[in-house]
Structure formats: structure tokens, C-alpha cells
């Protein structure tokens, strides 16, 4: 398992109630390094989510780095986790990564209830970046 995934799972294991998990998720979103406002435009918007999600990808030394944002706090937390998972990996590593951390941290059920939060769309987008 990707060491970032381990870290996320480890942090979430301290929280038991869903309130705490969401509070932590929201905190992760707040702490995420911000997306340069110039990328907060329709070109980087992931269509089809209830809240707006922007995802920007930068390539450095054969590794991909992701930056993102959302107008909803919970979604922003999801973005933060996804970025933590995939940022700094090579294309190959990204395409191989299939650990379902959301399942393990106990939020998958909640977050996958609707297409609305775009969790799957975000992961698809990241894999697309890696495929190009």
C-alpha cells in the first residue's frame, strides 16, 4: 500500500464517530495547499458534481503533482485526501494505485451515496492525467 494511504488511514483511525471524521475531513480540506486562483476556471472544473471541484496537474521530474479546490467543505476534504494519495507519484504508480482508502477510513459508504461529490470522477480525472 502507498505510504500516503497508510498515513491517512492511520489518522482517521483515531476518530470513531462520523462527526469527528467529518470534522477531520473538513480540516484536511482547510489545510490543503491552495490552488492558484488562475486555475479555478472551467478548464479545470470537473463537471457533474453538486459542488464545484477543480483539479490541476503539474509535471515535475517525471512525477505528477495535483492541486485542487472545491466550494463545499466536505468535497474539499475529499479533494485533499485524493491529492495526498496521488500527488508526487509517477504515471505508472498512479495507474497502479487502487487502494480504496475511503472504504478503510469508513467514509466510502457515506461519500459514495451520490455521484454528487464526484469522488469517482476525481479519481478518473487523475488517472486520465496519468494516461496522457
Amino acid at each position, binding site marked *: 500500500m502507498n505510504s500516503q494511504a497508510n498515513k491517512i488511514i492511520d489518522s482517521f483511525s483515531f476518530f470513531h464517530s462520523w462527526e469527528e471524521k467529518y470534522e477531520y475531513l473538513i480540516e484536511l480540506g482547510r489545510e490543503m495547499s491552495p490552488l492558484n486562483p488562475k486555475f479555478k476556471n472551467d478548464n479545470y472544473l470537473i463537471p457533474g458534481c453538486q459542488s*464545484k471541484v477543480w483539479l490541476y496537474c503539474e509535471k515535475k521530474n517525471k512525477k505528477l503533482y495535483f492541486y485542487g479546490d472545491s466550494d463545499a*467543505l466536505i468535497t474539499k476534504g475529499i479533494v485533499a485526501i485524493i491529492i495526498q494519495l496521488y500527488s508526487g507519484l509517477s504515471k505508472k504508480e498512479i495507474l497502479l494505485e487502487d487502494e480504496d482508502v475511503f472504504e478503510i477510513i469508513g467514509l466510502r459508504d457515506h461519500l459514495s451515496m451520490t455521484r*454528487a461529490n464526484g469522488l469517482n470522477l476525481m479519481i478518473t480525472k487523475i488517472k486520465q492525467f496519468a494516461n496522457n
Partner: protein
Amino acid sequence: MSPLDINIIRSKFPFLKTIKNKDFIYFDNAATTQKPETVINAISNFYTNENSNIHRSVHRIGAVATKKYEDTRWIVKDFISARSAEEIVFTSGATEAINLVANSFVKPMLCETDIILASSLEHHANLIPWQMIAKETGATIKMLPIKKAEFIQNSLEQEELDYTINLVELKEFLSTHGDRVKFIAAQHISNVNGGIQDVKELTKLAHSFNIPILIDGAQAAAHIEVNVQDIGCDFYCFSGHKIFGPTGVGVLFGKSLLLKRFQPYQYGGGIVQRVENASTIFREAPQNLEAGTPNIAGVIGMGAAIKFITNVGLQNIQKQELSLKKYLRSKLNKIEGISIYQGHNSLKLNKLFSSPVFSFNVNGVHHYDLAVLLAENNILVRSGDLCSQTFMRVLGVSGCVRASLSFYNTRAEIDAFLLSLKKAIKLLKG
């Protein structure tokens, strides 16, 4: 009429009393309602004891099924006070009913200079079909004028924006462009704010310019009495699943003379009189508009749902909903930073109210976040654009949370909802 005992009512809805669902608070009734056991039993009984195809069989069971299916046409006719059962077409829902009118009636008479009027308050189901046929024929779709800027004072609420169709402005528009307007489509009740349109006056106005009109009653039929003769509209539609019936079935009411002019847009079995190698003589409406084997169980289930509503009494339903609505409204008002988008215009109209639909936003909080946290508390609401992006634009928001009630909801549920809502706001505001 005796007042309703809500505990008895709730006990008739298996969904509301199963152990698994007992803790859910179902506030998503505008999306779909729960089903009473009489509806579930009617469907189950059909498949268990009467399952056979209709309009085809010579055997007794087939005759029973045919009779139940055709009886439902009469039940629907009485429910909406149509003139005759021939005016009732069974569809898969309100969406199909609207698409049927658009494609089989309106599209064949459109040309490039023509105009279709719909409103920006519509559900996508009552907007996109019109856009599509306009695109295909080169006709134009224009928006009905709405009042929104006018403030109205009423007993229940403070000043609010009025989202009803502006008949004065519409009349002016029709006076100059009336001959080009070939069709009007409008909602009866909004799925966003529960506001009720004055569809009777709207119809009168349309007819004074000889324009046929469709009223989308998807959000109305479970809440207010619908009388299509009184409204006078040419077409009216609703879905079974929003009136305590099954999904996948709905109704198009159409005046007989107009239905006869429909060009079926689906062809198949059950709609023909005589088929030669190269040509076919069709049956008359409504049968020619129900090609193929229909949703027989669904239609029978919808019939049971209508009987259920009639037995409970729409007046009882309204009374209950008005009381719930006032209660929720008074409490919601106290939440800091809340904007409630609620129709209120109907007080005068139906001596009633808007239907108990509460769409809202809380300042500084995203509707998606609220809905997720409410769902964690087992409170089922809807969030997003509510299939009404144009209405969202009128409201100046990208989406909202919608709590939509039905008469089987309770004050205790409202209290629990409010508690969770406050908790969620607190968590999100940090």
C-alpha cells in the same frame, strides 16, 4: 370528515415502520412518496393471481387484467375530473407524458417562425422536450414572464419574492406575438418552492389567443384537488410515484379532440385496427398512444394509490400539510443566515398554501455539505439544482437543500430535522 390519526396513517406505510427504516426521517417526498400497503398489495396481487397480458387474451384471467387496467382509466378520470376515460393516456410518468405531447402533437405543427412558451421555473422534464422540438423545427422557445420582483405580504410570511407567472405581461406579449405562439407549457406546483400557479387564469389567457396549453401537475396531484375541467387546460400530466403509487407509470390527460390529432411516436402492438403488408390502420386515442405491453401492474398500483388518497381525503391531507408547513416554517425562520425559497402565492388561490416544500440555503454553508451531514443523521433530503437549473438561476444560487414533506410526516420528525440541521451548521461553520 374526522381528523387524521397520523399513527394509523403511518402504520399503513411499510417503509415508515420497518425496523430498518424506522429511524429514517423521510423528507424527500417531492422526489418520490412512500407507498401504502394497499398499493403494494395491489401490485403483488396482480402478479400473484391475475398476471396476464391485456387487450389480447380470450381467457378469463386476461379479461380480469384488462378490466382492472381499463377501470383505472375511470379512476383517474374521476380523480382529476376529466370528461371521459378516453381522455386518459397511461404513460411511464410525467416525463413521458410531456415528451408525448411535444413530439406527437406540438412538433408536427411547428414551423420556423413559431414560438413555444415555457417558464424558467420548470422542472427540466417540462423544459428540455420543448427546447428539443424547437431545435428540430427551427421554432423558438421563449420564457413566460414571472413576477419575482413584486413583493407580496401575507399572513404566514413576511415580504417575499413572488415567483408566479405574470399574466399581465404575458397578455401584452400575446397581444403582439400571439399568432406566433403555438403552445404554452407551465407547471401547476413547483418542485423547488412549492408555489402554486394560477393555472386556470393562465389557461383562460392562452385560450383567448387560441393557444393550447399543458400543465405539469407532477407536484400537484398528491397535494391539491385537480380538476382539469375547471382549469380548462388541454393537457395535464402527473406521475404515479409522486402520489403514493409505483414508479414507471403516469398519466397524460388530453382533450379528446386533441388526442385524436396525435401522431403516435411509438409504434407496435396493441394500437392497430388492421395491418397490411405496407400500411396500418390505427386504433383511436388513447389506445393508439399506448403501444406495446404497458405497465399493467403499475397502472393497477396507481389506481390503488388514487383510491388511497380518496379514502384519506385530500382535504385531510391538506389540513395536515398546512399544519406541518406552518410549524416547520416558523422554526426554520429562526435559523440564522437562512434563505428559504418558498412559494406563498397560493394562499388566495386554493385557500391553501404552497405545498410543503422547503428549499433553502444557509449563508456561508454549501448545500451539499448540509445534505451530507443531514443524511448522516438519517434525514433524507435532496440537494443540488433539483432538476431546475433555470429556477436556480432565477434564485441566483447554484443549488439548495430541499426538505419536502408529506402528510404522513410529523412534528417530532421536524424537531429532529431542525436539531440535526443546527448541528450540521455548527460543524460546518467551525
